[in-house]
């Protein structure tokens, strides 16, 4: 079982953890207390979790944090559950969808020749009428979307009465920015509630084992996961209320609907809102980019550091920004060989010191290179990479095969702005900030009065600036809701100066340009 038995930084305490048994496509799988379905499967060598809708292509994990739907499975009869965020339970019955007899050896792929496509049940096979329900069930099954069991209770939304809670400031998303926002807001005396969809707060920080850069005031020199601990404690002290396992579903009439544990629905009526929902990893276009073993960098970090799973034996990393470079180092620490880090641009994207760390351990960084295709039948067995010219066009004849069982994509992130859009905040496209962002001012307020943003959801940057932005947004929101005093206003001005100082370098410049563009847009 590819578990990380020993790690130079982390202790997974395997011997103290309870083993949990469940089945996947009738096969018994043993995981540990704290595992998700996906981590337990991956650790048991099961990388093919489902088949794709149309061509029954094998699919596995990609994001590892519930954002991409690459890992849908049927759990105890309920289809379309995300394996990467569903904790395992003793005796759980997990089945792959749209495959017989298993995701690994799928006979239904033989049907691909018929070119059945998802949704065909709504176009063809419509008559005779009495057969329709049967067709529906059949196609839902064959095409992998699954059938809901009759006994699953339907939630009736229209008739319900939902508890309502009034707060001064609601913070959505408990990563570094959100925690700092909630803390700052509560410290201003505002009644603050933080909702986080995962089972613990910390977000990105939980996955980081390296010591942080940045300012001493923001825990530089401390390892990421420890910063998460410290921040959680400070948040508790500040008096802000925290709800985990709670998803902010949507906004209507000044209220945010939140759902705890997938069943308890309630409404929050805040005076001000801070949105710190983070970002989603991007993928890249290349042949076979859906093959199990092609994963987002964050997904790989999640597997390694939250679940103690060794994600592969030999890895290729695409993208040499800080995420790619740090990931290379973390993979080495977990005992994975890193074949190379490739970068399409002529120069390394991340900090020199991060690059030097992995170079010193013998990892090559190939600039002006990109990935052409992933190779493998059911999972990654290698990758073909190719050189590019100054216009980033592939140079024919420069292809090279790299044997590996893991391809990590560290090619950037896109801000999560869905809920901001829904609230009607003005959205602009700023490539320097990672794509579409909600327009915001220096106090982090969006075009909608009382709605603030912070962290990656306001533009992709790094954890320290996210924390500072979070604090600014938290103070701003508290002030707007009528709380806070002059001293808080002064603190906010100091924070803005610190932010400026933090960005006064070649890496921060991009963000500064982006923010200027945004103000002009």
């Amino acid at each position, binding site marked *: 079982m590819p578990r990380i038995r*020993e*790690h*130079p*930084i982390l202790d997974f305490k395997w011997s103290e953890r309870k083993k949990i048994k469940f089945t996947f496509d009738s096969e018994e799988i043993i995981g540990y207390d704290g595992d998700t379905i996906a981590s337990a499967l991956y650790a048991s060598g099961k990388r093919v979790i489902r088949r794709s809708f149309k061509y029954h292509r094998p699919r596995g994990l990609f994001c590892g944090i519930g954002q991409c739907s690459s890992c849908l499975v049927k759990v105890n009869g309920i289809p379309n559950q995300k394996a990467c965020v569903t904790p395992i339970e003793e005796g759980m019955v997990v089945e792959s969808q749209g495959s017989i007899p298993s995701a690994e050896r799928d006979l239904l792929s033989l049907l691909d020749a018929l070119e059945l496509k998802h949704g065909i049940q709504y176009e063809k096979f419509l008559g005779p009428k009495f057969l329709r329900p049967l067709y529906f069930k059949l196609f839902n099954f064959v095409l992998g979307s699954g059938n809901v069991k009759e006994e699953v209770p339907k939630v009736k939304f229209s008739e319900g009465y939902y508890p309502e809670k009034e707060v001064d400031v609601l913070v959505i998303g408990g990563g570094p920015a959100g925690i700092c926002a909630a803390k700052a807001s509560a410290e201003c005396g505002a009644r603050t509630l933080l909702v986080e969809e995962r089972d613990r707060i910390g977000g990105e920080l939980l996955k980081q084992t*390296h*010591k*942080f*850069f*940045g*300012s*001493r005031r923001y825990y*530089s*020199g401390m*390892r990421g996961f420890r910063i998460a601990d410290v921040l959680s404690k400070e948040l508790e002290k500040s008096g802000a209320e925290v709800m985990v396992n709670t998803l902010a579903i949507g906004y209507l009439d000044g209220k945010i609907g939140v759902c705890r544990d997938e069943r308890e629905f309630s409404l929050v009526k805040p005076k001000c809102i801070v949105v710190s929902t983070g970002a989603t990893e991007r993928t890249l276009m290349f042949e076979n980019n859906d093959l199990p073993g092609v994963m987002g960098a964050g997904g790989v970090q999640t597997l390694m550091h939250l679940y103690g799973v060794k994600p592969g034996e030999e890895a290729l990393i695409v993208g040499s920004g800080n995420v790619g470079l740090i990931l290379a180092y973390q993979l*080495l*620490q977990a*005992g994975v060989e890193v074949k190379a880090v490739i970068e399409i641009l*002529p*120069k*390394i994207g991340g*900090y*020199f*010191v*991060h*690059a*030097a*760390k*992995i*170079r*010193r*351990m*013998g*990892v090559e*960084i190939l*600039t002006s290179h990109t990935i052409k295709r992933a190779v493998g039948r059911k999972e990654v067995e290698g990758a073909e990479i190719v050189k590019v010219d100054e216009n980033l066009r592939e140079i024919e004849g420069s292809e090279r095969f790299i044997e590996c069982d893991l391809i990590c994509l560290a090619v950037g992130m896109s801000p999560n702005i869905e809920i901001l859009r829904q609230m009607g905040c003005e959205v602009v496209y700023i490539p320097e900030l990672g794509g579409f962002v909600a327009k915001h001012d220096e106090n982090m307020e969006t075009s909608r009065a009382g709605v603030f943003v912070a962290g990656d959801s306001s533009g992709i940057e790094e954890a*320290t600036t996210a924390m500072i932005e979070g604090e600014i947004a938290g103070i701003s929101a508290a002030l707007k809701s009528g709380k806070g005093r002059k001293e808080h206003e002064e603190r906010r001005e100091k924070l803005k100066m610190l932010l400026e*100082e*933090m*960005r*006064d*370098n*070649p*890496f*921060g410049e991009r963000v500064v340009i982006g923010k200027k563009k945004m103000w002009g847009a």
Partner: protein
Amino acid sequence: MHEWECTGFFTPEIDLDKLKKKGKILVIECPQRIPCDVCREVCPTNAIIMEKISDVPTLNEEKCVLCLKCVENCPGLAIFLLGVEGEKGYMVVPYEFLPIPKEGDEVKVLDRKGKEVGRGIVKEVRMGDTPLVKVEFSPDILKEARGFKT
């Protein structure tokens, strides 16, 4: 564009005569403007000069007492101690991999590209949040040696 921005390594000038005269020196290999001030903040004698947080750190050798706090805390693992003792050269480097070597172990000494440039003997291991390892080797490779593999 500097070459090190493409290659991920660079070779700063190191004055070997000075090193031999002084016995040991601190080397900071952090040539890029990044938002980081950890070394300056942990230094007990204010020997690291950096006006603004994104400045490149420089060392005031007069003030440095070689306490190695910066070596242990630098998140970029970019600070090293180089020294000579009798006929031998040595380095003290941060090491975050398993297994952590023991005193007396023989290790492969690596240069900035991970190429083996000789063999070394582990002389001391100081455990902490980041273990510091002292590796002794031939003084000829003092300019290249920056890491090791067990």
